[in-house]
């Protein structure tokens, strides 16, 4: 397909399945919404994993969401995601609000269909601070304006990007401008258009245009009075603005933090992301379902298989197929191994950032073993692309389970060793305790998930809340912290590694025999011998190769517990061989948006410690 044509979208409305017996209409939240906002509720349906969805009038999005958040019977306190969907053909852009209620353990999706003529929604940032970055991304990618948003500007694309809104269907895959045109436009830009408002304020550029700027007449008066208040006022202009990153040893990738410093105290912190943006979500729309898999592991390259497995799970739920018991067990084992992989890296680099270099080498030694296991399984170490829709790329090789068992048996020793170096170490405690504190309520408001949320005392773990891959059959605990400081985040992750070991110990003994792939010829290629021998298998083979996997029209929000938090995958299909929308709700994207809250008021050294402790990976943030 030429990159400039608009992809054909034949189906007018892609929705989930209509409410079946006891479907969305019986959901208490939907019923309450019907009672209260009847005219605003346009339709309801459930998605492929039976989560209720309500399509509402865009004009009343704020009221509906406010009700859902504040009403005690609803209590949807976690805004998991705000994402856009463009199904093409000039039809309205859909904005999904994915909600989760901690108290009732329910999920709900609110969908607004915003027409192109009036791409405007009311911002929900007053309700959830996490909406800040999420809405910015929707604006960046779809051009939906959120009125009342405090800082609506590009987030993943460069600030001076003016080729349009990349995730719209009319936007060509290769972009609109040639490189030379991009450079020419960038050079023509004025500084004010490139920098964040806060940065301009820091630099004093904005003050010159505002009324409250000190005028010249005031200066003699200022110099006459000498008082402590005035002295302090006068000093306020003398702040150091320092760029931490994008090339910095402790930002864990190409993250740029603009810090305003008063001495060593951080007064303001503005994160800039997008340096690694490669448009995975856009590219996925131009790839067949199985071809998307390699893009997924390049997001969280520190725990790649979790992404592979999550993506495959999402598509399988849309297909409505059940993977084999052996595949389920293998995926679970690989998930937990990758959790260890991610957490071990986190432990090592965090210790390194705080100055303890040796832990880093210890944990990397263990990661090496996991990479060896990866290699033994699928041949590659980091970007595995190990899953296929309906199964895995291969069955486990002989002896793999034993090797894995050996590793699991040995790992606690390294953990103990690292813990001996850190947990009771005075300097370590002094550097991490009461640093970057976030209480439970604020953490939820910021949309934190994963160990960061659990360190604040909320035991929310997708593996327990909405078990997938049969996690409910295993015996494990979800550790939670008390204060939500850096030390608690450290303890929670350490304990999580121990729990992963516990799961692995159980799972390794329970891998059932049998095929690893489903035997559905519409999903998985038949074995070569059969394809050559029987006409049915040959037809299936031909169709699968020539047409690709066909996924029925519908939508799904599927989430798993990644190492950094809740990884949500939103997929919309029109029944074709390519996704219409493939959204990855990257946990560290949301977690990073809380960074300014965590570090402002601390010291430069705390920025490093906190930034390390929230465990980000820029691959999934920038996507």
């Amino acid at each position: 397909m030429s990159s400039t044509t608009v992809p054909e979208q034949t189906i007018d409305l892609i929705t989930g399945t209509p409410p079946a017996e006891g479907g969305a209409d019986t959901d208490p939240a939907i019923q309450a919404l019907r009672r209260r906002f009847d005219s605003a509720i346009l339709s309801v349906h459930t998605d492929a994993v039976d989560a209720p969805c309500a399509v509402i009038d865009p004009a009343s999005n704020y009221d509906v969401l406010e009700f859902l958040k504040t009403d005690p019977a609803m209590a949807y306190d976690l805004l998991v995601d705000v994402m856009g969907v463009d199904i093409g053909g000039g039809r309205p852009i859909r904005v999904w609000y994915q909600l989760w209620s901690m108290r009732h353990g329910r999920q709900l999706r609110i969908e607004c269909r915003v027409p192109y003529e009036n791409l405007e929604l009311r911002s929900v940032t007053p309700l959830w601070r996490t909406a800040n970055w999420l809405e910015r991304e929707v604006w960046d990618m779809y051009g939906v304006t959120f009125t009342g948003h405090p800082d609506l500007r590009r987030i993943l694309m460069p600030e001076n990007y003016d080729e349009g809104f990349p995730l719209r269907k009319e936007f060509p895959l290769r972009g609109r401008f040639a490189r030379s045109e991009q450079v020419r436009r960038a050079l023509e830009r004025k500084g004010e258009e490139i920098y964040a408002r806060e940065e301009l304020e820091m630099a004093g550029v904005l003050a010159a245009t505002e009324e409250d700027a000190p005028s010249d007449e005031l200066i003699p008066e200022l110099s006459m009075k000498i008082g402590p208040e005035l002295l302090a006022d006068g000093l306020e202009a003398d702040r150091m603005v320092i760029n931490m990153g994008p090339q910095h040893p402790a930002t864990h990738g190409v993250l740029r933090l603009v810090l305003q410093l008063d001495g060593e105290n951080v007064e303001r912190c503005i994160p800039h992301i997008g340096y690694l943006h490669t448009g995975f979500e856009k590219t996925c729309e131009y790839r067949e379902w199985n071809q998307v898999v390699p893009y997924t592991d390049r997001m969280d390259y520190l725990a790649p298989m979790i992404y592979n497995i999550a993506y495959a799970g999402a598509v399988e739920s849309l297909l409505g197929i059940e993977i084999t018991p052996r595949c389920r067990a293998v995926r679970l084992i690989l998930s937990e191994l990758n959790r260890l992989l991610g957490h071990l890296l986190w432990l090592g680099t965090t210790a390194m950032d705080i100055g303890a270099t040796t832990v880093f080498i210890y944990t990397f030694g263990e990661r090496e073993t996991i990479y060896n296991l990866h290699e033994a399984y699928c041949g590659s170490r980091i970007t595995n692309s190990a899953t296929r829709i309906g199964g895995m790329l291969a069955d486990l090789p002989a002896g793999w389970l034993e090797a894995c068992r050996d590793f699991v048996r040995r790992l606690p020793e390294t953990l103990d060793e690292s813990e001996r170096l850190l947990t009771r170490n005075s300097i370590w405690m002094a550097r991490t305790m009461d640093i970057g504190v976030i209480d439970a309520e604020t953490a939820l408001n910021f949309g934190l998930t994963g160990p960061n949320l659990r360190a604040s005392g909320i035991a929310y773990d997708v593996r327990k809340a909405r078990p997938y891959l049969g996690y409910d059959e295993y015996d494990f605990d979800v550790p939670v912290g008390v204060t939500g400081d850096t030390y608690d985040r450290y303890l929670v992750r350490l304990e999580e590694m121990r729990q992963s070991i516990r799961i692995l110990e159980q799972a390794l003994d329970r891998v059932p025999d049998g095929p690893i792939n489903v035997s559905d010829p519409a999903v998985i290629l038949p074995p070569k011998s059969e394809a050559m021998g029987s006409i049915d298998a040959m037809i299936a083979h031909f169709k699968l190769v020539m047409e690709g996997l066909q996924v029925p029209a519908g939508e799904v929000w599927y989430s798993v517990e990644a190492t950094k938090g809740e990884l949500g995958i939103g997929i919309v299909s029109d029944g074709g061989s390519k996704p219409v929308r493939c959204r990855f709700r990257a946990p560290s994207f949301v977690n990073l948006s809380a960074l300014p809250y965590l570090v402002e008021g601390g010291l430069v050294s705390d920025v490093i410690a906190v930034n390390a402790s929230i465990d980000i990976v820029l691959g999934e943030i920038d996507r």
Partner: protein
Amino acid sequence: MDPMTGTAFVIATTLKILVFFVLLLVFVALSTYFERKVAGFIQDRSGPNRVGPLGLLQVMADGLKFILKEEVEPGGANKKFFFLAPVLGLVPATVLFAVMPFASPAPTRWGLMEMIVADVPVGFLYVLAIASLGVYGIVMAGWASNSKYSFLGGLRGSAQMVSYEVALGMSLVPVLMLVGNVQMPEIVSAQQNFATGPAAYGAWFFLPLMLTAFVFLVAGLAETGRVPFDLAEAEGELVGGFHTEYSSMKFGMFFLGEYAHLITTAALITVFFLGGWDIPFWQGDNIRVLADGTVIGEPTWWKTLLTFGSFAVKTLILVLFFMWLRWTIPRFRYDQLMDLGWKVFIPIMMVYIMILGLAMYLLDEAGIPVGWQYSGALIVLNLIMMVTLIWGLDRGMIVKGATSRTRRRAGGIRGRMTPTAPSEVD
């Protein structure tokens, strides 16, 4: 035998300067290799093992690399100070060695040769004066680089060094109280045991002055600017701190300066608290030249060599200890470091000096002569204070931030779990 005088003295001193400057530089170079081997040992890896036998020539390769690399000068740097800074980083650390007594005096045809380059009457005051010059290198580097990271590093470095200079100076006061003299050879012989002649304490000062030795060790470590006190450098935070913008041999000089500083600090601790070149449990090395030229003991060449060995071994053990620390513990935060210096060490030393003065007064009043009984009483006193302090340190009363741990860890973190938790928010 009389001490050397005249031309012989001048020639001998020149030779000593040459030999020991070269020796020091060789040791500095080797200590970079040593550090990497130690790090390798601690981190379950091999360390340098490619260049030369056991990787020993790595030192040469590194040196060559420093010299041959391109030198980059940041735009807007102040050239003069940018150049001067690495020099000032290296020189003070090396010239400190001038007052270090590293072996017992050696007899020669022209008289007795004291194994010290310059036995200056101001003794350790010279040490304090020169050591405090080291801060200029860091400040200049930080300021002249015209880089914000360097600037922050320079600021941190200067504040740190100035504060720990105070603790360092105060921790030498008790030594002065015991010895009554600031000359370095005097300090060494005061830690020896003489059957006849002047009074000596017969114990290395780290025993009767345990607390002081501890403070001096920590303050000395802070002066060298190594983990956990590498805030001026703080590669994770300030990229490279004051030397971020340095490259090539200019960086090499900072690098050498750091290791020279390390060895010098270790040597100073050896002289002040580990008996200098004294060999324990052996009276043969108790040699001393009094101010009037009388020599006590029997100086010989082999004793000189033996005592030098003793000095080197003690210094190396301390260097090893510093390296071990570096690869084991994380670094302090800026404010914690300042708190430790100003709010912990300085008050501790003030109180300690008073207690020590009182103890010495009481011992003198009781008529106990300077010797092993005197030292024994001080050791007991120090042990009590040391145990109290360590207990305090471990209880998190000294390094701020660790206070709340008993409160918070009371319940433990394990197994507090409810599936799909009832929200703890409301």
